[in-house]
């Protein structure tokens, strides 16, 4: 035996013990000869690394732009009214200083100016509450957006995340499922108001929406956050125990008689990708059982046989 194997043995033993504890098994680790592996259809492979965007499923609803137009119009008119009230107040101030206006008139103008400014603040708050990130847009930008919405070249959607009341990192992109076609949308930001679904909502902007998609339509949305790294394993390789998900891996050192011993290895499920999962907890060099994991799981739960069997 080479010195390397001497070093590996205790490591393997430790891995095996911890793995058995993870899987909640008192039974010995399954060991299979090459012939048995062929018979039961065990396939071992390394899990490839992958970087995938984190995905969150959400429900989307196309918003009615007329409401935005009305809200923006209301905001602008209040601002115009405030500007007018400020100008009137300034004019009366000059007149009053020249004793051409009464103090009463000046005070009335100042009161109207204050009232108009209060209305502006109120409208701004209402707009922000309703439209969130759109409240931070400049007049021209907002006008441009409204123009685009009005002509159907853009759509606004509200994406709800049922069961969630907060959002950590803002997703970088959204994919809206329109009749099976994933249409990208920009994530503008969170919406402060909670809708009927009692969940946190995001405002999405979809450029060049499919024709016919209009306000009120409800669509599945997939929110994508920053990429995260992991390894891809087939769904069939995963097993579930009280301590979570795990896979079986072939131990580096072969047991006596050249048989291969397998041990459970806990993994964290990050994300489902088709018929596979992106998982954390695997390392380069881990030889994962990608087919026939059920065989090993079954072996660990059958109980031992008596000596006569051998």
């Amino acid at each position, binding site marked *: 035996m080479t010195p390397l194997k001497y070093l590996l043995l205790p490591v393997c033993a430790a891995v095996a013990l911890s793995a058995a504890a993870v899987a*909640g098994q008192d039974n010995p680790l*399954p060991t*299979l000869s090459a*012939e*048995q592996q062929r*018979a*039961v*259809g065990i396939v071992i492979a390394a899990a490839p690394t992958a970087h995938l965007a984190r995905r969150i*499923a959400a*429900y989307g*609803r196309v918003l009615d732009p007329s409401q935005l137009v009305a809200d923006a119009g209301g905001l602008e008119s209040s601002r115009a009214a405030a500007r007018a009230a400020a100008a009137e107040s300034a004019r009366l101030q000059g007149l009053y200083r020249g004793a051409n206006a009464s103090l009463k008139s000046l005070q009335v103008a100042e009161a109207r100016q204050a009232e108009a400014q209060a209305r502006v603040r109120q409208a701004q708050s209402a707009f922000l509450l309703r439209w969130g990130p759109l409240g931070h847009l400049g007049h021209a930008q907002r006008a441009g957006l409204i123009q685009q919405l009005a002509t159907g070249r853009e759509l606004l959607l509200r994406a709800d995340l*049922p*069961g969630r009341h907060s959002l950590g990192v803002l997703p970088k992109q959204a994919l809206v499922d329109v009749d099976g076609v994933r249409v990208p949308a920009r994530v503008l930001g969170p919406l402060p108001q909670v809708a*009927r*679904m*009692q*969940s946190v909502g995001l405002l999405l902007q979809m450029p060049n929406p499919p024709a016919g998609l209009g306000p009120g339509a*409800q669509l*599945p949305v997939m929110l994508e956050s920053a990429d995260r790294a992991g390894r891809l394993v087939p*769904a069939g390789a*995963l097993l*579930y*125990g*009280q301590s*979570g*998900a795990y896979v079986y891996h072939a131990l580096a050192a072969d047991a006596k008689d050249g048989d291969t011993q397998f041990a459970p290895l806990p993994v964290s*499920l990050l994300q*489902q990708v088709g018929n596979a*999962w992106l998982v954390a907890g695997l390392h380069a060099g881990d030889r994962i059982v990608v087919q026939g994991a*059920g*065989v*090993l*799981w*079954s*072996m*660990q*739960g*059958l*109980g031992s*046989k*008596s*000596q*006569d*069997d051998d």
Partner: protein
Amino acid sequence: MLSAIVRASLAHPRIVTALSILVAALSFGALLHARFDVFPNFAPPHVTVQTEAPGLDAQQVEALVTRPLEGLLAGTEGVKTVRSKSMQGLSAIYVVFKRRGNPYLQRQVVTERLSGAASILPADAGPPLLSPLSSSMQYLEHFGFTSDRLTPVQLRGVIRWQVEPQILAVPGVAQAMLYGGAERERQVIVDPQKLAADGLSLDDVFRATRRATRLIGGGYVQTASQRIVLRAQAPGVTPQALSQAVLAERHGLPIRLGDVATVRDGAAPRFGDGIIGDQPGILVETSTQYGANTLTVTHALEERLNRIAPALKKEGVIYHPALLRPATFIDSALSKLRASLLIGAVLVVLLLLATLRDWRGALISFSSIPLSLLAAVWILEMFGVSLNTMTIGGLVVALGVVVDDAVIDVENITRRRRNAGAAGAELDARQLFVGASLEVRQPVFYATAAVAVAFLPIIMLTGIQGSFFRPLSMAFLLAVGISLIVAMSATPALCALLMRKHRPPEEARFLLTCKRLQRRTVERLYGHPRAVVGLLVATGLAGALLLPLFGQRLLPNFRENYLIAHASLRPGISLRETSRVGVQISKRLLAIPGVKSVAEQIGRAVNGQDRDAPNKSEFDIQIDPTQGYTPSQIEAGIRKVFEDFPNQLTEVYSVLAERIGETLSGETASFFVSVFGNDLDTDDAVAARIAAVLKKLPHAGEVRLQVPPRQPELHVRLRPRRLALYGLQPSDVLQTVNAAYQGTVVGQLAQSDRSIPVVVRIAGIRASPRTIGSLPVRSSDGAVVPLSAVAKVEMESGRSEIDHEDGLRRQVVTANPTTSDQTGFADAARRAIAAQVKLPPGVYLRYGGAAEAQIAAARQLYLHAAAALVLIVLLMALAFGRARHVVLVLLVLPSTLIGGVAAAAMTGATLTLGAMVGFVALFGMAARNTILLVSHYDHLVQSEGKVWGLETALRGSEERLTPVLLTAMMTALALLPVAVQLHQPGHEIEGPMAVVILGGLVSSTMVSLLLVPPLAARWLKPEAARS
């Protein structure tokens, strides 16, 4: 009375002969129409009550379904035992009735008891369904169907709706269980998002689907001259039509089912599968009705299937016949036994001709043998007893006595004529026949009675042993009784017809040689009485001491062409994985030379007799030993294949052994310990300790806990405060979970001649425990939240199965000892468990299995044998009237068995109950020989006035030599083909019997002819007794 019968027969020989021919003809007719079966109906009548409880786990099923039903069945009249299994989605209660009742009435009582079940079971549980009464073997035939053209749904549709009704229409078929394929269902797959968007709930979908699929009859239109039937069609008759069903109305527009759901026909989730050869298919398992004839029903079923197979082939369905066919064993066993008996019969005729040297004597002697046996078959048939391994065994055992009856009269007449020399032909024939017949009649009567009494202990066996061996004993007694009647009627009548002017030929030379040898030996032994007694005692003791050392087992291993392998994967394994492994195993099994076919049933069928979960499967393997490999080699290959699949526990049985084991105790293992106690964890702990003790015993074989270990479960625990937060009702959540992972059946659609369930499911459900938390749940006010927001979802372990016996929870430890001494292992196991396992309060054990049954049977047998021995002594006392005679007979009897003991030792040293029956028969035959010899001494002294001494004893012995030797040789020749083919199928019961009798015949003949005369000459005092 005996004398009157003989005289009447001699007075009307033609009438008696004609009557005998008539009886023989009728009996032969009865034989042609006899019911053939593998075994007598050994199992007590039983039914299985199965109740589907969709979505409930084992503990919920136990508490909500099994317990209430057991409560209903408790105390039911005629019920012996109630065993149950509670598992995910199913409660199966096995009700065993008492024997000797009317099983149809007993079943009716159970049905009446269960009539109140609907009010105590959960709303979603199905009605309790009773299985039909089936025969002990249960299996009729397994066959399969595969198709490369049809989908699993289409294939199942063809088999279920076209083939199954035809199978069930065959008289005698009790049930047909289908494994594999997929049931068709109409699926309404709801998109939860669309449903929420429209402000609708699952209840709205259920209601709309029900309304759309409900069929309401139309009535008829009556005109002045016509009455026209009005047929109304349900709107949901096609998926497209069903998707148009209106759910609600919004702003004047209808919201249809298709707007929120996809409607399509699909496959229902499966709880069983079938693999034929190495490809998925449908395995059909049929069972025989209670009391039906296996051979007849099998042939009728095969005829029906062969008729429909061509039509099925046109549809792309391939028929795979006889995947498991118990009738093959019956056919094979009967043909081999028939051949053996035919060879035996030819040998007997040749021997008769060679020894009697007279065709008349040979004809009379031989004709009485088939007459007695055929008449016995006729009577058995009249009483509804089938011809099976056991009844045929009884007739084989009776051969020794029947042959003796056949020979003794003819030989006596021939001897008397020969002794009279030239004057023999001039003797009054009737006087001669009467004298010859009556001389032996009384002792023959007592000897036959003694043999019959020897069989009483076997008749009195109870339980399954009684069920097996009572028909054997009945057949034996019938044959022996009829043989006695034939010897008093047909034989004298035939003698009167054929031997009236008969001149007997000279005695065969080898008989004269035997007589010379006998004389020489007896004269020598006469001088050494102590040596003779010593030899008798020594051989008697040797037999008595050796017998207990032999291994014991209830029944032998039956050499069938079918094997059953029970495979068990870990509970909780998926059906797909079990099927995948099954296909791999089947491929390798089929590659073994000598394996003809393989089929696998996985899980369970709808209302099937097997209540297995998807982790359990059963392989039906047909072997063909004619391909140059012995059954042992093929079986070794099969076991080797299973060894390469260590992911499952496998036990390989012959079909008969599997059935018998299952019937004995509900367990197929030959030894098991039931642990009873209310706390399942304590039961498990005790069972584990017992298993550890058993594993340490030598030859323990496979030791297992029968109730499987825990399986992973995903527990959904609702959080009341969260539910309140979202305004959700618990039932809303549970209903959604049920629809998502089980599917909610909301109606049935009638289509053509079949009905299809309509099931509502939820779309987008992924097969991962991780994603269950994201299942959307919608409250009545429209809030949609994932399940994880209102419930805690955790992986835990739960019980996959909970077993009860008579209402008590039980865990079972089983062992399949590798030794042939099953009884010895059971004894050792009991002792070891008693010494090493301390039982907690409230826990107790019950032992069972074939070995336990054998111990119980042996106990009964010893007790009854002691009583029978007393009766035999009384009978002999009545026959002889002298204690010395009785003592002499009792002294020599044990030593006559030594030959049987030696023969049994040479052929494996294992005593099956068949071999034990051989010893009983041997005991009876030896007693008969000795009684007849001693009676002949009495006759010489009392009737012929001889003076008792060595010379008279020698004469008596010489005169008895020919019948004794002839009987022994005839019996030996008749049984020789059976004994030689000891290891052939069909000879499993009769073979060991024949071996024991053959060996015993050697010793009993030598004892009767060589050891009894010198002792009798010294000790018996016939003259003094009479004077």
